[in-house]
Structure formats: C-alpha cells, structure tokens
C-alpha cells in the first residue's frame, strides 16, 4: 500500500503507517489518516470508493430486480418446485463468499462455460459475484415481507379481481419500505464482502481494487493504521447511505407505513 495512496499523506503519518508495523498502534492515528484521506480528495482513493459503490450498488439493484419478483412469487403462489427453490435459496444464504467467488471464477475463467464473455478480473465479474452473493438475501427477506402483506391484502386483491402480475405489482408497491430495508441488508453484505471480489476481481490497482480488498492488502503488508483508516472510510460511506435511507423511511412513515 505504501507507494500509492499512503504516499500522499503527510510525512509524520506516513511514518506512522510504517512505524506501527513494529510497535503498538496509536488508536487516534487511523482516525487522523482517515480524515486526511477524505479531505485530501486523493484521486486513487476516490476511484476505489467509487468502484466499491458502483459494484455494490449495481449488484444490489440486480439482486432486487431478480429477487423481489421471485420473493413475491414464492410468497403468493404454490407451484411445483417451490419448496425446493426456497431450500436452495436459503442454503445460499449461508454460503461463504469465497466459495461463491470460486464458483463464479470457474464459470467465467477462460475454460469455463461463460469464459467467452472475457469478464474475469473486471468489475463486471465482481458485480456478478456480489449479485449471486446477495440474491438469496433479497429473495428470503422479500418473501417474508410479501407473505405478511399478502395475508393482509389477499381478500382485497381477490375481491378487486387483480391478476397475478397486478397483485405482485401492488405487493411490491405496498412493501416499498420493507424493500428499502432489504436493499440496505443486501448493500451491507455486498459492500463489506472481500473473498469473492478478490477471487474474481484480482484486486488490480486502478482496475478492480475496492475498499475491502485495499484493506486486506494493507493489512497483509502490515500497514494496520492505514488499513484501519480505510475501514473507517468504509464505515462512513455506509453511514451516509443509512442516513439517506432513514430520511426516506421517515417520509414513508408519514404515509402510514409501519416502520
């Protein structure tokens, strides 16, 4: 890590980055570094934060687009294979990210079935891995939310003669606050993930390096204070998104949502 982002820090903090390899870390140094990193507007750091957000938000969006209708379908209709689908989806909830990374790697590596796409070690591969990682969360949580709402609304929807598509559309709309929480849960899982993106992204500087892989690299190089500072930056990013969602939730509460 020394030699790029940390090289832009003041000398005393650069020294701290290296010095703490051998001595105990001053607890305030990571906070100082984090503050400096954020205020310096370092292009590489901003690029890493931008890529982290792009990859994770895209993965969350994709998982919601696929997962919400699936969750609604599982919650509202009985069809052959439904139970098997729920079991598989729930199994993937507990799947270690590195295993998912490995599976995606095997799929998109040159000799894999999707090797022709040539996306290994690109942000697209990272998005794919994170989508697969958070999709089960999106399906499981949305199924739970939709089941509860469907129990409440089913007589009304039936009385209004709504078809399958209109029911799911109405349920998704009624569940919009719960879906915000689901989106946040998915985002939390995606942004904090390191194993899968490391395997399929390769942690290539200026290309596929994200916050978590940067932290892993800094830690492996012994730059603990710097790694911790990056962790604080990551936490601040997550905090900002949560504050924004809380404000949105407040506006939903004003519409009579039970949040």
């Amino acid at each position, binding site marked *: 890590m020394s030699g790029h982002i940390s090289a832009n820090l003041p000398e005393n903090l650069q020294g701290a980055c290296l010095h703490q390899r051998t001595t105990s870390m001053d607890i305030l140094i990571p906070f100082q570094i984090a503050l400096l990193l954020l205020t310096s507007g370092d292009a590489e750091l901003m690029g890493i934060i931008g890529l982290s957000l792009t990859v994770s938000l895209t993965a969350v969006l994709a998982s919601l687009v696929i997962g919400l209708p699936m969750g609604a379908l599982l919650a509202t209709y009985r069809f052959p294979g439904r139970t098997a689908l729920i079991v598989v989806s729930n199994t993937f909830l507990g799947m270690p990210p590195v295993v998912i990374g490995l599976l995606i790697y095997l799929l998109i590596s040159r000799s894999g079935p999707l090797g022709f796409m040539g996306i290994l070690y690109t942000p697209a591969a990272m998005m794919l891995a994170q989508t697969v990682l958070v999709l089960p969360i999106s399906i499981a949580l949305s199924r739970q939310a939709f089941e509860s709402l469907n129990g409440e*609304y089913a*007589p*009304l929807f*039936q*009385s209004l003669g709504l078809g399958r598509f209109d029911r799911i559309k109405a349920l998704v709309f*009624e569940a919009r606050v719960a879906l915000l929480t689901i989106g946040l849960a998915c985002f939390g899982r995606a942004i904090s993930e390191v194993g899968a993106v490391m395997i399929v992204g390769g942690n290539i500087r200026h290309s596929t390096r994200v916050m978590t892989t940067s932290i892993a690299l800094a830690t492996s190089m012994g730059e603990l204070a710097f790694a911790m500072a990056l962790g604080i930056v990551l936490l601040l990013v997550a905090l900002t998104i949560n504050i924004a969602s809380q404000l949105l939730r407040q506006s939903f509460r*004003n*519409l009579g*949502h039970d949040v």
Partner: protein
Amino acid sequence: MMSERPAPDIIMTARGLTLRRDGVTLLDSVSAQIRRGSITLLLGHNGAGKTLLLNCLHGLIACDAGTISGPPLARQKMVFQKPIITRRTTSAHLRFLCPRLDDAARHDWLRRAEMDRRADAPARMLSGGEQQKLALIGALATRPDILFLDEPTAHLDFAATKFVETMVCQAHQQGMTIIMTSHNRAQAERLGEDVLLLDSGRIVETAPADRFFSAPSHPLAKQYLDHL
C-alpha cells in the same frame, strides 16, 4: 363451481353450498336466491356462517359443493368488516380501488364522504369510521351490480353509521343489489327487504324483512329476535 343464468328478477342463485374445514361443516347445503335490486340481510348469531356465506357468494372462498350463479366478479364489490387499506394517501387508495375514476369524479366522491380535505392524508392514518367510508365509496364508485357489506357499521359512531346507511339507500334506489350482514336490529329493520337467517351454517328462515321481524315462523328465528 358451475354457473348458470338465473331468472330475470333474480340476480344471484346459490344451490347447496357446502363448506367443510378440518372435518367441521361450516356451511351446510345453503341455497338462496337474491332478488335484483333488493337489500338482503344475512342475520344470525356469531359463528352462524354469515361472513363465510358472504365470502362464498362473492367468490373469495371456494365451496366444497354447490353452485353459484350471478354477475361476474368484476361486477361485484365487497366492503369488509375491517377495511383493508393500502399504504397510500386517501386519494391514491381510492384510485387503487377504482382505477377508471377520473380526478374530478374521485374528488366528488371524497367530497360526498366529507373527506376531500383528507385527500392527501395517509389512508391508514384515517379514523376507523373514515376508513370504512373510504372503503364504501371505493366500492360504490365502480357502480357494481351487487355490493356485499360485511357488518359495515360495526364499531362506527352515529354520524358514520348514518353516512353508510344513506349511501346504501341511495345505491339501492339506483337499482344496486345489496347483500349485507348486521347485528343491529334497528338497522336491519330500517334497511332490510329480504332476510336470510343462518344458524350453525344452515339457513333456518328466509322471509321478507317486515314479516321476519313481525312474525317469524321458525323457533330459532323467534329465539334470535328475542336476543337481538
């Protein structure tokens, strides 16, 4: 469930409706004819099967046996005892109930219910009476052939009850068929034209309302009226 065309003055016919759940017979060979443009009251003690029969007639619950003939679901509307309200504004909820209603008509219905000032309020934040009024105008605005009302004035205050009864009377005068349940004898006498008395999932008396209330023929009907 087989459907057949009813006689011209009969809008809905039920024959031999039977519903069992967990070995218990909830509706037992219920047969009834609903006159077009009438207000028919389903009466009976709690657990007699009034709401179940209402749900079966409306098509919300499939019976194990029996047939129902009547207008299609799109020409029927139901107001539930506890209104089911979406997480939208009052106006948006009304739009959800009647998507074809234009803005002016929607505003007019809200004004008639004295809720036009609450149009932008969250529908779930309305009082119980206001929610019931919203559900009722949402059903009436679509001008259905049959309106099912499940104890529409339960838990409502005098003003809200009066509004519901006025709207029901107006709809009836316009030719709408109304099938409702009630535990309120005074209301039943005010509104009812035909009465079906249920007991333990069976119809024990069918009669014009005035005759039912003045000279019930079945012992269970007399007993029911004594308790009402």
